[in-house]
């Protein structure tokens, strides 16, 4: 039995040597469990699985994807917290999971219990409506609301609900904020006419390009790639934004060489548009965004500490 094992280890070693261009000579001591905080088969899940597939091919590492969904990534983080921190357990969430959601959940977990490995892509968060509504910019929505029309605003997370509320407050109107499960559900609601406007994080790209949907505003601190003329939340009087990324994290205490090797490998795959994973990221988000190392640690910590201010503002 031992012989089979040694042969396996040797094969693993060979595969890594063959990709020797990477500086890190870290190799996982066993299969890597990749936890996914998103529903199986969805865009984010597909992205994660394709990254795993590419890494298996490139690095010879073995990944075992597993769904741990619910509570905006908090379920995944709670499960991951006590898992081995030798680099054999990683998970993909969004920065909001480690930031706002952990802060709001108040479950005794903080970003310090985790270590950021690498982001993969940034949201292209727009406030979107059907183009058949006749609105071309957010001011038209505000005008409609002031004209007495009830506006249903679809959101897919508590943080976005806070932002939608603050946006209404800044513009002097009341939105009927409707929480739904996932960005796809916002898009379904908007398409079916159940919702008037809604936050969409990149899923709208195709509909906007086809002219069915329109980005009325950017939910980010920066203009949207696809609709650069749409006003940002700051333009509309809200001092918070929904900037966020898909991010791979692991339990705190992963050794530096393992963290670096994982980060380098993941960033390498997603920024290469010829890989399948890189391809779909390009399609939905206009390209990858890979933040690693200390910059990522700071980003995660800030997201968490800023959450309080947003909750306070929305709680007024």
């Amino acid at each position, binding site marked *: 039995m031992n012989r089979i094992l040694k042969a396996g280890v040797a094969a693993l070693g060979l595969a890594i040597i063959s990709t020797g261009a990477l500086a890190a000579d870290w190799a996982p001591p066993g299969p890597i469990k990749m936890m996914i905080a998103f529903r*199986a*088969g*969805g*865009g984010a899940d*597909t992205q994660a*699985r394709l990254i795993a*597939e590419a890494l298996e091919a490139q690095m010879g590492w073995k990944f*075992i994807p*597993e*769904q*741990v*969904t*619910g*509570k*905006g990534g*908090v*379920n995944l983080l*709670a*499960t991951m917290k006590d898992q081995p921190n030798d680099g054999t357990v990683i998970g993909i969430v969004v920065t909001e999971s480690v930031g706002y*959601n952990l802060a*709001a*959940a*108040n*479950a005794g977990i903080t970003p310090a219990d985790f270590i950021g490995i690498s982001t993969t892509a940034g949201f292209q968060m727009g406030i979107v409506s059907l183009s058949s509504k006749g609105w071309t910019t957010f001011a038209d929505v505000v005008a409609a609301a002031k004209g007495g029309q*009830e506006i*249903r605003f679809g959101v897919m997370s508590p943080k976005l609900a806070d932002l939608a509320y603050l946006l209404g407050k800044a513009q002097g109107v*009341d939105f*009927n*904020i*409707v*929480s*739904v*499960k996932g960005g*796809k559900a916002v*898009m*379904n*609601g908007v*398409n*079916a*006419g*159940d*919702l008037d406007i809604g936050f969409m994080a990149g899923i709208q790209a*195709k*509909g906007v390009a*086809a002219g*069915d949907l329109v980005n009325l505003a950017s939910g980010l601190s920066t203009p949207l790639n696809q609709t650069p003329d749409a006003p940002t939340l700051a333009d509309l009087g809200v001092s918070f934004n929904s900037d966020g990324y898909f991010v791979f994290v692991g339990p705190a205490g992963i050794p530096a060489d393992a963290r670096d090797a994982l980060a380098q490998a993941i960033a390498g795959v997603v920024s290469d548009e010829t890989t*399948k994973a890189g*391809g*779909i990221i390009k*399609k939905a988000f206009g390209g990858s965004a890979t933040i690693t190392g200390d910059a990522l640690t700071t980003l995660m910590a800030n997201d968490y500490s800023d959450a309080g201010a947003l909750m306070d503002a929305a709680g007024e």
Partner: protein
Amino acid sequence: MGVLDYIWLGILSVFQGPELFSLFGLPVSVTLVMILCGFLLGIAVGATPGLAGPIAMAIALPILISVFGYHQDALLPVMGFLIGIMKGATIGGAVPAILFNTPGTPDAYMTTLDGYPMTQKGQAKKALRVAHFSSASGDTFSDIVLIVCAPFLALLVEAYLDLPEKTALLILSLSFISAVIGGSPAKGLISAGLGLLAVYIGTGEDFYPRLSLGTSQLSQGFPIATAVLGVLIIGSVFKGLEELWHEKRQSGQISVIKDKGDQRLRFAEIRRLFPFIARSAVIGTAIGALPGIGSTLAATLGYTVGKGRYQRLKAEDDPEFGTGVPEGIAATEAANSSVSGANLIPVLSLGIPGNAAAVFLILAAESIGGFNPGPSVFRFTADTVNPELVVAFGLFTAMFIANGLNWTIGGVFMRSMGVMIRIPKHILLPIVLLLTLTAIYVQETRMAAIWFALAFGVLGYFMRALAISPLPFVIAFILGGKLEESARQAFAATGGDAFFLFTSPVALVFMLMSVGVVVFTAIRSKGSEQSS
């Protein structure tokens, strides 16, 4: 580009797609081969107790995407394969229900009621023929309706159902199911109540996972597979084993059923069955077209309507429904099979799935890209080609090819799955149990899921022992999440109107019907009790 041009392009896209190999000089497109493979796999999977179409689709999708990649050319082969599984599993699902009294899918449950008694009477092959004929008829009818109505009907339905009406419709479905299916309204309500409770554990809007008793295992909620497969399949495995156990203790041996009598399906019988099939096909199609209501309700309604008609028309000494009459199988199978086609009406035109199979079709379209199920699909453009509409007609073509396979080789292949009856049940049931547990585990990858499934199995066993139908439980579990979500959304969307369920006439009618159906059945059962 006229309508006919689009239809023609759609058909061509299936037959002229990338060529896999050529047969007698004719190129065979990869899409055709994929539909066939999916269809055969679907029958096998559907016929295997413990497996079901959605599980096969869930496992196949990532593999297919890895094989075909992210390109518009991948849409038809991948979705053709999934459609094949969907249709194959629908007819295959009747096999274990009829032969082993273990429904592979929730909607095959009603098939067991008459299918299994027929097997016990030695009429297994005939029961399978009835199931296949009804299923294929219902399916074909439904597909025709889909193609004729998809562009118009879905938009119409959606236009009249806003969030409050959708909530009211879900409430109506639940109260109807509880009142009518449970055997008695009280037991139906209890069954549905337990299902709702189970689905609400660990879920909810707040970050604290409600009712989780502070445990981490409950905080993720019960995965749908554990509840549905547990109560339906494991519960019936337990019950089946117990029957064998008692049998062995009483007679000292385990009986094996041999085929008896005429197994063929005669034309005269088809004529007798046809009114049942036709009614159920219409019911199934109508239900399938409503977003969010799946084949289980259709099967139940089809069976109930069929039962009513049968009791009015039957001769004095004809056997009752539930004792092994072909009409019962026909009414159920035609109804649940006719859902799948119509279910694609809201899927294709609104992007809203009505059942698990439709969910995987949407996921496939979404993951691959180039096809965005939604109102834009049915935009008939005059001067440019709308590629999504071509894909839509390609899918319709794929469905008809699958139907053709169903009529030609489906029945034979399905009945060949009947060899499984030669396996003694006391050996098969434990294997089915391990298969079911394994299927749940590979999906959920935690031992807790297996324990949950076994606990639900015990619940299902006790429910059966106490004559409580497990079906309201399962339907409540499936609809519960949607019910809470749509109620929250309707409440929020109407600006916190506490009476949102009663302000629109349509919602009001649904709500009155919900109360009415429970009161009516309770009074009626009281009345029949006193007269007896």
